[in-house]
């Protein structure tokens, strides 16, 4: 048993999936999951719903507390301060040291802060963890006006959260349109439309210069790069996230941005692995990539459990997919949808009310990507189309198969097919 003690740092989706999948393959092994953030695994994506009163913390826990006992997975509620890779010991903040045989780093992300003056004032914060949510409750107690810096998926969630408490929101974004680094212009415009419908303000093409102190260590406003001053009593910093590698410093773990791993999620130190947001996967050509997504965290866990159990398995993304919700606007994406790439043809449709859209991306005559907003599409169907390299013409004959909207919903496919056929 001695060589069978698996310790996982981090109980987010990547760490927990590793633990559960590993348990399936190794019914007798000792598994320990350490987290200082939360005693039990909760759904990080549901943080916003707790704040908005859609759910309580208990509702965001996918498995009841006694489940972990039944699965014989030991939970340690503490922060890891240091990894001693030579003697395979973890130093914890409050409790006794833990020995490991194999170690998985699944420490997730931290919110980006770019060294802005005033970024550590009271009333200024990002949103990633339970502790951030606790802080937010305190920070917005008497807030009336908030500024959100950075327009991504967390930014729009934070805006919706603040809006639910009657706080006015102003976005400060670098681009001209919302999340335009990822979304093509048309979809970005739909998001802007949704933002305007809720009467949020949007300041475009503007960077933050500094955050202003009210004299008591609390935020009183911001100054933009154009020296425009905007008053506010809360600033949300959501310009993306970076791997949380805080324990690497004293532990000589190999890092660049994240923990460096190969395609099997192994670090160069034997018996140490990393997965999820914190892993930076170095490809064969020397470039590296971080996958800071819920879904990839889950996939990493599944793959890593195989490798840990002796069945060395490579992480392959397969047909990419992701989803989000911008206020009331649902978004799903499958395959490759990039802006302005040479050699690709985009077929785009949107409804007159700007609440629904579909984009099919064509390359060398076949479908390579799907973007859909305000309509639900079937994951497996879109995936099959892309995997099997269907032509757009063929996809149009099958388009209705992909629709996953509730029964009796208005079907947009006839209109879409009509439009796209005309352009073929």
């Amino acid at each position, binding site marked *: 048993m001695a060589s069978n003690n698996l310790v996982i740092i981090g109980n987010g*989706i990547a760490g927990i999936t590793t633990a*559960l999948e590993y*348990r*399936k393959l190794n*019914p007798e092994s000792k598994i320990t999951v350490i987290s200082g953030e*939360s*005693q*039990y695994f909760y*759904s990080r*994506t*549901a943080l916003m*719903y*707790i*704040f*908005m*009163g*859609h*759910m*309580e*913390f*208990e*509702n965001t*826990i*996918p498995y*009841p*507390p006694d489940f972990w006992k*039944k699965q014989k997975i030991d939970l340690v*509620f503490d922060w890891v301060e240091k990894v001693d890779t030579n003697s395979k010991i973890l130093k914890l903040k409050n409790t006794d040291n833990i020995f490991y045989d194999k170690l998985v780093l699944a420490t997730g992300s931290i919110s980006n802060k770019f060294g802005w003056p005033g970024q550590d004032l009271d009333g200024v914060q990002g949103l990633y963890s*339970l502790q951030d949510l*606790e802080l937010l*409750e*305190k920070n917005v*107690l008497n807030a009336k006006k908030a500024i959100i810096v950075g327009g991504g998926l967390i930014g729009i969630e934070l805006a919706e959260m603040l809006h*639910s*408490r*009657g706080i006015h929101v102003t976005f400060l974004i670098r681009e001209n349109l919302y999340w335009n680094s990822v979304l093509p212009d048309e979809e970005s415009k739909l998001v802007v439309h949704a933002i305007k*419908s809720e009467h949020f303000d949007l300041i475009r093409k503007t960077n933050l210069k500094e955050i202003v102190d009210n004299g008591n260590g609390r935020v009183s406003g911001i100054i933009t790069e154009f020296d425009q001053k905007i008053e506010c009593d809360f600033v949300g910093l959501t310009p993306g996230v970076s791997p949380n590698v805080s324990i690497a410093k004293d532990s000589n773990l190999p890092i660049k941005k994240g923990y460096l791993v190969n395609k099997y999620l192994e670090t160069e130190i034997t018996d140490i692995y990393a997965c999820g947001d914190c892993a930076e996967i170095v490809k064969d050509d020397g470039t590296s990539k971080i996958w800071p997504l*819920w*879904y990839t965290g*889950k996939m990493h866990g599944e793959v890593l459990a195989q490798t840990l159990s002796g069945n060395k398995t490579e992480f392959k993304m397969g047909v990419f*997919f992701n*989803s989000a*919700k911008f*206020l*009331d606007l*649902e978004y*799903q994406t499958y395959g490759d949808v990039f802006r302005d790439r040479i050699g690709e043809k985009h077929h785009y449709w949107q409804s007159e009310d700007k609440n629904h859209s579909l984009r099919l991306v064509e390359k060398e005559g076949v479908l390579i990507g799907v973007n859909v907003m305000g309509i*639900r*599409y*079937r*994951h*497996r169907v879109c*995936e099959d189309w892309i995997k099997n390299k269907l032509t757009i013409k063929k996809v149009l004959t099958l388009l209705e198969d992909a629709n*996953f*909207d*509730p*029964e*009796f*919903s*208005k079907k947009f496919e006839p209109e879409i097919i009509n439009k796209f056929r005309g352009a073929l």
Partner: protein
Amino acid sequence: MSLIQIGNVKAKKNKIPTLAKPFAVITFIGFLFLAVIFFQPLLKLKLINFGNWASLTLSLGLIVFGSLGWIYYNFANTIPGIKHNNIFFNSTMRRGLIGWSFGILITGFYIVLYFYEKFKAWGIPPLLDSLIQTVNPLSLLLSGQNADRWFLYGTFYTMAVLIMGVRMLLKYRHNRYQQIRTLSVMFFQLGFAFLIPAFLKAIKQPEFYFTYFWPLKPDYLFPWGVKNLTGKGSVGMFMICWGIVMTFIATPVLTYFFGKRWYCSWVCGCGGLAETLGDPFRQNSDKSEKAWILERWLIHSVLLAIIFITILLWTNDYFGRSILGGFTYTAKEWYGFYIGAIFSGVIGVGFYPILGSRVWCRFGCPMAAILGILQRSFSKFRITVNGDQCISCGNCSTYCEMGIDVRAYAQRGENIVRSSCVGCGVCAAVCPRGVLALENGPRKIGRFTGSNKNPLAIIKDSLLNREIYSESKKQYSEK
């Protein structure tokens, strides 16, 4: 559970739209009138002359008008979409003081209603008489006969379904499944459970509810119920046939094609009230595994009880009531009181704000038990899970009125085929990632990932709690 304390800081109250405010006052005045009418005989006062159209308009009329205006202006300026903000901070919806008070009020009403005769016998002043008098003009208009307490109950019930139905229509104006389903329960309540029975009375025909069948309405296949109708000519014969056809033919056929939802969330009056008046309380259903075990024991016990009682009654009837004498009558009375009145009424509806809106449907209703067995073993219905898109957020499980842990299936990409699911479709509506959809598909594909069990095996597993075990085991032993 956790050391983390969040979501407990008092949320700021949502701003009440200006135009909605006067309607709140109007509704309040209506309730005030109703309260005065209710209390004045007890206090031996005579402030309002009730039993005429004026007092009916000033009480129930103002309540209908005011609440509809309130609901309308609360939704008028919102963007269509899921609006669940602050539900868990809300006193009414989350077992606060208002929620408890409301629960006690409805429970009190049911007790007064069901114990009406007993209260009279005990010499307690008949509490409902002034209210019954108040709705009398409506009863005279519809049926030409004086109102009784059941007419009063029907009036309140129908009002609740219609008013809160309008709320559902506005809340889900982005979702046509929800709208059509809500219109359906409103239609069946108003037409088949209120107007048609009154009309039948007016034309001196037996009072009959075409949307209730055995075993939910056991009388319709009890010997005395059938005999009562056989004496009523061709209309009575039609009603007997209707009841038999609905129970033994329509139920399995419709459930095969659509799942139990064709009845539970589209037609049934109990379901209709749960889906309208009960909607604000759906998140209070118990999601624990213990509740699931209790559910399966209780609901199947009630089903067995009513089957047993029905057989006994017919056997006894066949032998000219010679073999069992008074026992069958006692059994029927016992069922009618404890199951029909206390369970389905007092607990089923009275405890809406505390236990959620489907307590009777989930733990007690024998009709739901039959529909559930059919749904699980012999139906095309399932909730489909969309690939790997689940983010485990928990909205589906939280807002499931039947207490199904929808997420447990969704997060492992497994379709949901549960006997208790009434197909309300709210899990799919609240899902922020478009992961769930109600579907009628091929029976053998996509329903059970594993075996296609026969109905008896399913009931047996269900009662022996095997399913939970095998499912959780499956999750961690197979890939």
